[in-house]
């Protein structure tokens, strides 16, 4: 008999729950509302009178919104559901008391987070393709998007495993995710920022996603950003898997 990979039931559980969420339109609305507001307010409003690097502001903004939205959705759903499942519903304990290994649990959780991030991104991409002729989806764009979802879903696991209460996840979001959404080049280019601020900005992984996702092809700057993203992704994944392995009450 063909053996089922250990991550599959973890992933399947999340997908069954996700399907039920999708059937309630509230989820779709909450995933879409923030990026659409930004798109309308900044893109269609401000964007008409602003140009970035010779292109329309809308063409600059849409990849940034895809990066931001994929980050938010990959991260938040994993962090929040893992915290709740571990601390309140105790359903996470079903995983750790099963023979499935910690890496498999990590893979299942991260893949589920990626699906949620990709789903939200697909909606923004669709709006972008309809609203701007300057916006296109390249192979590098897709690779960056996948990497970004993987990275932030892994970070979501770390938050979900470390949070001591559900309020903790909001604190992590306010201190790390929210500043990253606004200062990592989603809404404006960061290359002209003051030197000290720039140093902080370039530590943030989303900055490198924003650099890479806007490249037509991989150049020197893009390669550095790709390597930084890979390093972050690997570090977050390994640390998340370690937290699951060491889990104890």
């Amino acid at each position, binding site marked *: *008999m063909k*053996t*089922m990979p*250990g991550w*599959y*039931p*973890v992933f*399947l*559980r999340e997908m*069954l*729950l996700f399907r*039920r969420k999708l059937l309630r339109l509230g989820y779709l609305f909450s995933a879409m509302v923030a990026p659409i507001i930004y798109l309308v307010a900044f893109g269609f409003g401000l964007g008409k009178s602003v140009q970035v690097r010779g292109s329309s502001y809308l063409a600059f903004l849409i990849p940034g919104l895809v990066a931001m939205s994929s980050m938010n959705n990959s991260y938040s759903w994993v962090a929040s559901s893992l915290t709740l499942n571990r601390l309140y*519903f*105790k*359903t996470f*304990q*079903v*995983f*750790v*008391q*099963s*023979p*499935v*290994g910690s890496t498999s649990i990590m893979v299942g959780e991260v893949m589920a987070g990626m699906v949620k991030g990709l789903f939200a991104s697909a909606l923004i991409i669709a709006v972008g393709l309809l609203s701007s002729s300057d916006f296109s989806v390249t192979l590098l764009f897709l690779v960056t998007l996948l990497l970004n979802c993987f990275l932030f879903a892994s970070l979501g696991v770390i938050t979900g495993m470390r949070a001591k209460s559900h309020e903790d996840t909001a604190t992590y979001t306010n201190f790390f995710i929210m500043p990253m959404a606004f200062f990592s080049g989603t809404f404006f280019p960061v290359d002209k920022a003051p030197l000290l601020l720039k140093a902080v900005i370039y530590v943030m992984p989303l900055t490198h996603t924003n650099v890479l996702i806007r490249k037509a092809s991989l150049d020197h700057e893009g390669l550095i950003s790709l390597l930084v993203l890979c390093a972050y992704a690997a570090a977050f994944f390994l640390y998340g898997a370690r937290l699951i392995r060491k889990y*104890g*009450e």
Partner: protein
Amino acid sequence: MIEVVDITKSYGPVKALDRLSFGIRQGEVFGLLGPNGAGKTTTIKVLTTLARPDSGRCIIAGRDVLSDRTGIRRLIGVVPQENNLDRELTAYENMLIYGMLHGVSDLGKRIGEALEAVDLLDRKDFVVSHFSGGMQRRLILARALLPEPSVLFLDEPSVGLDPQIRRHIWDIIRKIRKGGRTVVITTHYIEEAEALCDRVGIIMKGQLIALDTPANLKASVGGYVVEYLDKDGKLFQEISKTRQEAHELARDAPAAVTVRESNLEDVFVKLTGQRIS
């Protein structure tokens, strides 16, 4: 089957388990009886790999709980104190995920059999949030039995359920015991320990203070209890070895008297000076 040697576990300044030691035989229903906070759930968490003890050793079927966690997880089924089901999934989906996690083969058929054993087959496609507390408890029992574990841990299996549903859960546990499986139950219900367990360990402040069959434990304090309220309304109890001795005591009592057989609560009171509940 299970050997617990000198396990200690602290949560900050609170010592949950204090050099706890006991053994459980293959095929027996073993009860850990004690008040809330005695260390029962911590013991189950240690034995089911959810908590790591600060010191001590636990062996299940020859495997070390600390060093062979995956091996242990293949042997055990757990019914935790909380109904940790996915409330937004159906009964079948909950069983499916659990079965896959435990590598159960012929899963569809096995889920059907397990749900039938707890009278939930006709509800398999119902979302769990629509289930009553008793139905959720039965579903967790069916889920824990799905991989046919050698040892089944039940942490307060009937807590919060009304008496009729509690008896239904007991009937299911009795059926499980007939299969020759080792069952470990924690409870603070005297009747539950007496009704289900071959042997009972009484636990208090993380230490085992008595361990024997319910009959032997009761015999150790005397078989009968004479009870009456004195003139200040305070409950007076006296234990005697025989029914005849009890009735003699009752004759001399100053108020209306009840003579009853002793129970595990009397054992607990005699050992600790406190009541379990």
